C-alpha cells in the first residue's frame, strides 16, 4: 500500500495542479503534496515496515504475462526517501522564483516525481519500462519550456539520447522475456533465466547502454552538461540529484542479478571507461568558468565513481555506492541551490565576474563551504563514507589492475578538491566585483533548505550505520551471486 501511495500521491496531486490557476496556491499545493509524500515514505521506513505494506500487486495484462507489481527493498527505500526529500527541498529553495505558467511547471514536476518513483519500485519489466519513459516526458516539457536560450535543441538531444537507450533496453527486456520459462515480465521469472555467455553479453549491452546514458557514464555523457546548463535550475536539481540514480538503480535491480556472468565479464572494461570518464570530467571541470557547467562536470566525475564502485562487485564497493547515491543527491541539490541563488541575485554564472560574496552574504558562504567540502568527501561529511567505501572496494576488487584504478580514481579526488576550492575562492572570496557589490544575504527559505541539507550531510557523515543497514540485504544477495561465479576462477 505504501509503495502504491508513493506513486499515486504525486501523480494525482500533479494532475490536480494543472487546474490551479493562482500561482501562490499552486506553489503551496506542490509543497504540501511533496511533504505529504515525504511523510508516507518515512512511515514506510519506520512504522509500516511489513512486507505487505511495502509491496503491491495487481493483474494488468494477463495474456502478455505482465502485472502491475511494485516492491520496496532496501535500495528502493533509500532512493524513494531521496526522491521524497529532494522535492520539498527544491520547492522550498525555489519558493521565490517565479515561473511563467506556474501551474504547468509544478504539475510536470510532480508528475516527474511519480515517474521516478515508479522506476524505483517496479518489479515487472514492462511496468519498469513504462515508468522509465514516463519519468522522461515531464522532464522534456520542463526543460524545453522553462529553460535557457538554447533549451529546445539541448533538451531534444537529451531526449533522443535517452529514448534510444530505453528502446535498446526494451529489446533487452523482450529478449529476456522470450527466454523466461513461463513467458512473464515479472522480475522473479527474469531472475530464473539462464543464458549462454554470448546471449548474456548481448542482453548486458542492450540494457547497460540505457543505464549508462541515464547516469551518464563517459562517453555517453555529452547530453549532460548542456542539459544541466540550459534546464531551469529547479529541474536540474531533480535531474542530477534523483533522476541519474535511476541508471545506477537499474544496475542494482535489473542488470547484475539477471546477467551476472556478463556483468562480471565486462566489469573490468566498464570500470576502466568509468574511471577514464572521471579523469576527463575532472580536468574539464578545472577549466570551467560557468558555475553550472562546473557542477555538471563534477557530477559526471562523481557518477563515474559510482559506476566504477558498482562494478567492483564486492560488499564494500557496492555498499559505498548505495550510500553515495543518497549523499550525492543531497550534496548536488545543495550546490545547485547556491548556484541558483547566485544566478538570480547577481545575474551571472561566470566565476570571473563574481567575487567577495563572503562579505555580502556570510550565511550563504558558510553553507557553500560546508556543501563544497562534502562534495570533495572530507571526513565527517556524508560523501566521505561513501567514497571511502568505494575506494576500499576498488582496492579489493577482483581485477588485476586494481592498483591503477585506485590511483586514477584517487587522482580525481585531488582534482575534485582543486576545482571545488577554486570555485569557492573565486565566488566567495577576493575583491567585490561590480555584480556582487549590491547583493544581500540569503533569505529564510534558502536558509531552511540549505540548513536541512547540512544537517543531512553531517548526520550521514557521522552516523551512517542506519543507511548501511538499510541496503545491506540487497548488497549481500548481489555479492553472493558474484561469489558463486568467482569461486571456481579463484581456485
Amino acid at each position, binding site marked *: 500500500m505504501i509503495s502504491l501511495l508513493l506513486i499515486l500521491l504525486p501523480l494525482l496531486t500533479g494532475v490536480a495542479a494543472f487546474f490551479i490557476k493562482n500561482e501562490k496556491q499552486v506553489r503551496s499545493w506542490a509543497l504540501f503534496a511533496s511533504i505529504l509524500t515525504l511523510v508516507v515514505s518515512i512511515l514506510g521506513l519506520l512504522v509500516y515496515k511489513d512486507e505487505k505494506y511495502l509491496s503491491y500487486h495487481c493483474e*494488468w*495484462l*494477463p*495474456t502478455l504475462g505482465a502485472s502491475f507489481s511494485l516492491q520496496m527493498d532496501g535500495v528502493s527505500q533509500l532512493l524513494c526517501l531521496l526522491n521524497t526529500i529532494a522535492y520539498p527541498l527544491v520547492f522550498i529553495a525555489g519558493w521565490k522564483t517565479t515561473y511563467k505558467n506556474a501551474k504547468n511547471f509544478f504539475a510536470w514536476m510532480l508528475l516527474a516525481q511519480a515517474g521516478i518513483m515508479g522506476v524505483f519500485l517496479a518489479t515487472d519489466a514492462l511496468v519498469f*519500462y*513504462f515508468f522509465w*519513459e*514516463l519519468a522522461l*516526458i515531464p522532464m522534456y*516539457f520542463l526543460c*524545453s*519550456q522553462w529553460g535557457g536560450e538554447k*533549451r*529546445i535543441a539541448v533538451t*531534444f538531444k537529451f*531526449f*533522443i539520447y535517452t*529514448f*534510444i537507450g530505453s*528502446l*535498446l533496453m*526494451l*529489446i533487452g527486456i*523482450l*529478449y529476456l*522475456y*522470450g527466454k523466461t520459462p513461463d513467458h512473464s515480465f515479472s522480475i522473479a521469472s527474469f531472475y530464473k533465466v539462464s543464458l549462454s555467455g554470448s546471449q548474456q553479453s*548481448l542482453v548486458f549491452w542492450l540494457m547497460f547502454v540505457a543505464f549508462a546514458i541515464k547516469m551518464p557514464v563517459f562517453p555517453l555523457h555529452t547530453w549532460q552538461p548542456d542539459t544541466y546548463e540550459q534546464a531551469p535550475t529547479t529541474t536540474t536539481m531533480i535531474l542530477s540529484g534523483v533522476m541519474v540514480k535511476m541508471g545506477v538503480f537499474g544496475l542494482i535491480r535489473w542488470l547484475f542479478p539477471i546477467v551476472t556472468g556478463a556483468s562480471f565479464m565486462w566489469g573490468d572494461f566498464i570500470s576502466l571507461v568509468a574511471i577514464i570518464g572521471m579523469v576527463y570530467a575532472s580536468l574539464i571541470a578545472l577549466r570551467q568558468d560557468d558555475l553550472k557547467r562546473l557542477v555538471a562536470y563534477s557530477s559526471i566525475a562523481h557518477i563515474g565513481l559510482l559506476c566504477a564502485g558498482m562494478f567492483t562487485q564486492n560488499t564494500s564497493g557496492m555498499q559505498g555506492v548505495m550510500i553515495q547515491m543518497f549523499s550525492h543527491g543531497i550534496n548536488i541539490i545543495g550546490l545547485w541551490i547556491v548556484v541558483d541563488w547566485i544566478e538570480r541575485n547577481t545575474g551571472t554564472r561566470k566565476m570571473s565576474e563574481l567575487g567577495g560574496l563572503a562579505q555580502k552574504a556570510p550565511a550563504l558562504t558558510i553553507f557553500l563551504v560546508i556543501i563544497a567540502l562534502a562534495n570533495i568527501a572530507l571526513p565527517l561529511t556524508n560523501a566521505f563514507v561513501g567514497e571511502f567505501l568505494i575506494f576500499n572496494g576498488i582496492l579489493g576488487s577482483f581485477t588485476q589492475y586494481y592498483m591503477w584504478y585506485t590511483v586514477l580514481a584517487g587522482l580525481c579526488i585531488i582534482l575534485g578538491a582543486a576545482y571545488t576550492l577554486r570555485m569557492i575562492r573565486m565566488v566567495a572570496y577576493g575583491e567585490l566585483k561590480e555584480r556582487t557589490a549590491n547583493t544581500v544575504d540569503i533569505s529564510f527559505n534558502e536558509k531552511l533548505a540549505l540548513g536541512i541539507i547540512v544537517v543531512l550531510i553531517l548526520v550521514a557523515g557521522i552516523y551512517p550505520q542506519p543507511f548501511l543497514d538499510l541496503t545491506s540485504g540487497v548488497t549481500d544477495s548481489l555479492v553472493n551471486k558474484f561469489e558463486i561465479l568467482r569461486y571456481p576462477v579463484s581456485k
Partner: protein
Amino acid sequence: MNALILSAILGVVLMFSGILLKQKITIRYIAFLGVLLLLVVNVMEMCGTVLFKVNTHGMIYFDRFALLFNSIVFLSVFIYFILSAKDMEKVGVNYAEYFTLIFFILCGITLTSSFKSLLILFLGIEIISIPLYILTGSDKKNLKSNEASLKYFLLGAFSTGLMLMGIAMIYGARGTFDTTSINMFVEEKPSALMIAGMLLLLFSMSFKVSAAPFHFWTPDVYDGAPTVFTSFMATIVKAAVFIAFIRLFDEAFGVLQSQWQLFVAIIIVATLFIGNITAVFQQSVKRMLAYSSIAQAGFMLMAVYAMNTDAKEGLLLYAVAYSFATIGIFAVLIKMKDYTFDGFNGFAKHQPVLAATTALFLFSLAGIPLTAGFLSKFYMLKAVMMTGKNLWLVIFAVLMAAVSVYYYFRVIQAMYFKEGEAQSLEVSPAFKWALVALAVMTIILGVYPDILFYWLYF
C-alpha cells in the same frame, strides 16, 4: 456479411440522397447514421445474428478477426466523420458523392478483410482503389489534386496488373483460387511459376500499403489529395490493405514462409529507412505525415514478417492506434491555415485542448508508453523477437523509431515551446470533445489493450 451488403446499399442510398436532398446537413446525418448502422449490424454479427444469408461457395468467410477489424474500421470512420465530415463541404460541390464513394470503399474493405479466394481479394482491392482515385482528384480545380489523381491511377493500375498476373500464375501452378487449397497443395519443391506469382502479389500488395521501394506515389498523392481524404486513405484504407496482406500471406502462402520472409525483411528495412529519413527533411506537416505513414507501414509489415499470434493481435492494435492518432492529427491539420511546421508555432497558447490532444497523438505515433502507439509497436517487436531470429531487424526498427521522434516532436516543439501566432479556423465544441474522446481511447488502449482482444476471443 451484414456489413458487406448494407454498405453497398448505403452507398446507393447516399448517391440518390445527393439528388433528392438539397440540405447538406441532412446528407451528413444520413452518413453518420449509416456508419452507426454498419457498426451495429457488424457487432450483431459478432454476437451471432446474421441478417443476410448468402451462399458464397466458400469464397468469403467472416471469422472473428475479420469482423473485429470491420468494427474497428466502422468506429474509425464514425470518428472520422464527426471530426472531418464538415470539412468535405469545402472540397467541392458533390458533397453526397464523397460519402457514396466512402461507403463503397467500406464495402471493399469488408471484402478484403474476409476473402477466402484470390478473386475476392482482387475485387476488394479494386473496389477500394477506384473510388480512391476519384476522391484524390475531387478538388477538380486544383492542379496538384489532378496530378495526384492521375499519378495514383496510373501507378495503381500498373500494380493491379501485376496482381492479376500474379493471381493468374498461381492459378497456373495450383489450379485454384481458394487460399486454403493453395496452401495445402503438396509438392516437393515449389514451382517457379508459384514463386513468381507469389512475389508479384507481394510486390503489388507492397505497392498498396506504400512500402518501399514501391512507395513513390505516396508523398505526392497524400500531399495532392484534399486533406480530408488524405486522412481517410492514409489510415483506414491502409490498415484494411494490411489486413488483406497478412491474411493472404498467412492463409495462402503460409507454407512458403521461408521463401518470402527474407523479401519481406528487406522491404521492412527499406521502408523504415526511407520513410523515417525522408520525413526528417520535410517542411510541411502534411508531407511529413505522408512519409510518417510510410514509416509506420514498415512497422506494420513486421507483423507479416513474423506471422504469429502476437503479430495478428498486434496488427489489429496497430491499425487502431495508428488510425486514431493519424485521423486526430489530420483533423487538426485541416483547421490550420498554414501547413508548415512554423504554422504550428505557439499553437498551445491559442488552442490548448487541440494542442494537448495533438501532442498525445504524436506521442502515440512516436511510441511513447501509456499510449496505444507504444503497445502496438511493442507487439510488433515482440512478434519478431518470438520468431527467435533476425534480432538485427528489431534493433534497426527501434533505431528508426528513435529517428521518428525527431520529426514528430518538431510539431510539439512548435506548438509548445516556440513563440508565434498559429492561425487556425474556428472549431466547434463538438469537435473538441470528439478529439478528447479519441485521445482518451488512445490512452485506454495503451494501458489496457485487452478491451480490444477480448472481442477477438470471446
